């Protein structure tokens, strides 16, 4: 039974990555290789930053106390993977479209839960790998690797996946529990998830500050870990080859996981099938209003977005961060200015570097709102509606892009202005940064639509599939981050070749070129593709 369910999950994943959505056949070798290269680049780019951290901690750890560095990297790995995997667990476990169909079959709920948990476990491992595997690599490079250590560390990688799975399943269960208790499930779900994510981000923010201090005093860090977070004390020792620590950490993770599994499986049917939303709303005549076709399409995109927990949590976070950040900067921007002031005296090139920092922040934040990269796939089985209606496919695509602009370009532009004011960036650069932010958002939204048209997936059972696992989303999200960082590096090294405002202007021109090309492609080819998807 479990094997059959796992095979079904694998087929879904296989179809997502290896099947050509249009023809139904296998993807061409070129497309497959391109996709693999893309994922490898994204993985390497992110793993690089964690590798840097690992190198810092492994070097700073006193001789014989390397376990502290492993414990710290273990904390980072578990926290990050839990955050990134949290929403997936809720949607995957409780909101899959085929839940009711599978529950109507003679499948024990526990088996169904287990099959779903395997998917969540694999995704957790993928996220944990970003921090843990680079640490192993750094250990190897620093000559701190033996066969025993390699086996222990690899084993701990898979065991910490169990702990991540347990934590994310418990989180998913809490969200589902609150959702079944209140009438408006979607809003409750989003609020609970947001509170959780905000909590985790605050924790991570504090952890980062703490880690900087810890790298200066690893001995003290070890004491704190030993006294306050015992499991990670064991994890650190386990990674250094202690058999007893391996057993203790494994037992701890397995116990937490068993408790999570018991809780989820015992309440699964109720949690995944209870629907309370909107059962008593009564129709009133005033709800009939007319609007233009273009506005109706845009409104449809917005309605979908605000009614989808998956979309809101995956693409709405960036908007919240940008809006909240902008408000904070407009009100308390002087705090930032006070901190930057002394640095400006110590670093003469700071004036040139600040616009680059704004570019990095804007690119990273705007890239979080990559809804257009999933917007075509999200049409799913109801794509026939837009295709059979008297509406130009280009108008449909433009509505998707326009909504993407609302999520990315507009808050991004406001954030750029807020940052420029708070950092005291001169007027011409501030204006150019605002233009850059607006163009980056529009280009990103347009490019997302193009990518999704080229790699659509209309046969999903959970919105999570196109929104979180789709290659276009990954490309746009991480591509945006990498672009921001690459631009900053390029800007730093070319600072003596051209003034900052010229550099930003060049970037705007480049973005405009990409946007114009993407737009032309949508008009000539994209609309035709959408018509017969």
């Amino acid at each position: 039974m479990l094997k059959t369910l796992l095979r079904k999950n694998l087929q879904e994943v296989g179809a997502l990555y290896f099947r050509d959505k249009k023809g139904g056949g296998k993807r061409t070798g070129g497309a497959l290789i391109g996709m693999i290269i893309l994922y490898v680049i994204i993985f390497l780019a992110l793993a690089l930053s964690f590798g840097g951290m690992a190198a810092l901690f492994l070097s700073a750890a006193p001789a014989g106390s390397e376990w502290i560095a492993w414990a710290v990297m273990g904390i980072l790995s578990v926290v990050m993977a839990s955050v990134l995997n949290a929403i997936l667990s809720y949607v995957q476990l409780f909101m899959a479209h085929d839940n009711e169909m599978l529950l109507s079959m003679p499948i024990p709920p526990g088996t169904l839960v287990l099959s779903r948990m395997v998917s969540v476990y694999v995704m957790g491992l993928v996220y944990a790998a970003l921090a843990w595997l680079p640490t192993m690599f750094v250990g190897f490079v620093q000559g701190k690797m033996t066969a025993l250590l390699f086996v222990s560390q690899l084993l701990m990688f898979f065991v910490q996946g169990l702990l991540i799975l347990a934590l994310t399943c418990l989180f998913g269960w809490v969200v589902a529990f609150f959702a079944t208790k209140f009438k408006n499930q979607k809003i409750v779900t989003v609020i609970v998830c947001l509170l959780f994510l905000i909590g985790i981000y605050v924790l991570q923010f504090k952890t980062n500050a703490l880690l900087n201090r810890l790298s200066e005093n690893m001995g003290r860090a070890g004491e704190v870990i030993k006294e306050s977070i015992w499991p990670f004390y064991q994890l650190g020792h386990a990674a250094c080859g202690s058999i007893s620590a391996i057993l203790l950490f494994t037992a701890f993770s397995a116990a937490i996981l068993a408790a999570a599994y018991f809780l989820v499986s015992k309440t699964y049917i109720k949690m995944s099938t209870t629907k309370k939303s909107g059962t008593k709303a009564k129709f009133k005549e005033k709800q009939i209003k007319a609007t233009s076709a273009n506005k109706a399409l845009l409104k449809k995109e917005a309605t979908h977005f605000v009614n989808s927990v998956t979309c809101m949590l995956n693409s709405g976070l960036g908007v919240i961060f940008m809006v909240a950040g902008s408000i904070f900067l407009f009100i308390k921007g002087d705090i930032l200015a006070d901190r930057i002031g002394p640095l400006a005296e110590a670093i003469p090139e700071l004036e040139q570097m600040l616009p680059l920092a704004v570019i990095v922040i804007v690119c990273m934040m705007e890239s979080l709102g990559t809804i257009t990269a999933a917007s075509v796939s999200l049409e799913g089985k109801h794509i026939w509606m837009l295709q059979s209606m008297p509406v130009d496919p280009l108008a449909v695509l433009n509505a998707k892009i326009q909504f993407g602009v609302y999520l990315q370009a507009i808050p991004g532009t406001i954030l750029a202005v807020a940052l420029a004011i708070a950092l005291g960036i001169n007027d011409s650069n501030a204006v150019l940064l605002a233009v850059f932010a607006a163009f980056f958002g529009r280009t990103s939204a347009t490019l997302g639509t193009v990518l999704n048209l080229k790699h659509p997936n209309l046969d999903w059972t959970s919105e999570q599939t196109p929104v979180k696992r789709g290659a276009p989303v990954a490309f746009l999200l991480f591509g945006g981050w990498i672009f921001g960082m690459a631009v900053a590096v390029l800007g730093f090294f070319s600072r003596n070749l051209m003034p900052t405002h010229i550099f930003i202007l060049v970037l705007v021109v480049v973005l405009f070129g990409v946007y114009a090309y993407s737009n032309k492609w949508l008009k000539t080819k994209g609309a035709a593709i959408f018509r017969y998807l």
Partner: protein
Amino acid sequence: MLKIEHLTKKFGDFTAVDDLSLDVEAGKIYAFIGHNGAGKTTAIKCAVGISDFDNGTITIDGKDIKKDALACKRELAYIPDNPNIYEFMTAIQYLNFIADIFEVPADVRSERINKCAEMFEIREKLAQPISSYSHGMKQKLVIIGALLHNPKLIIMDEPFVGLDPKATFLLKGVMKEMCENGAAIFFSTHVLDVAEKLCDMVAIIKQGKLIKCGTMEEVKGDESLEQVFLELEDDQNA
């Protein structure tokens, strides 16, 4: 109103629809019958412009579906075999959306929504999310949405599936009324009794090829449509 000439649609080496020609006149109800996988849905999807085809032409009210897709779509309404509609909307949001796309004036849409929703007994539930609707209710909603812009041509794929007896009766009444007002209706069905009683014209398709078509009397003669259909199936298999 709907003219299909030499329509051929292939999926790789498989020919789903093979040289199909049909002419659906205004004021007529046309049944399209055939076994599962005969090519009915594929032909219908080509006719409504959501599936490309390899050969042939399809015109709606004299306009080519490939060359002037939007003009064709303004004249038609399509009801698919499965009411997969936007579950993130409420029913009234959905109907308003359809009416906006077809540019139905507010007063006209208001009157039609009220009339149709009352008739299909879902008016009270229009403010509820579609996700809370049953299959049959969704089907009713799709039918109401299809009637909002008063189409000249209605193309339906298995429209009676999921409808309760009263809604089935009502839909048949709506179809007759639309035809009396000059619209054309083309629909696929497996319910041969309904087709026999309701339709003026019938086409039988097998493995993508048209094997018989004409007025109901021409096709069935003194026999029932069911007998004719089964005999034709047997003849083709022999």
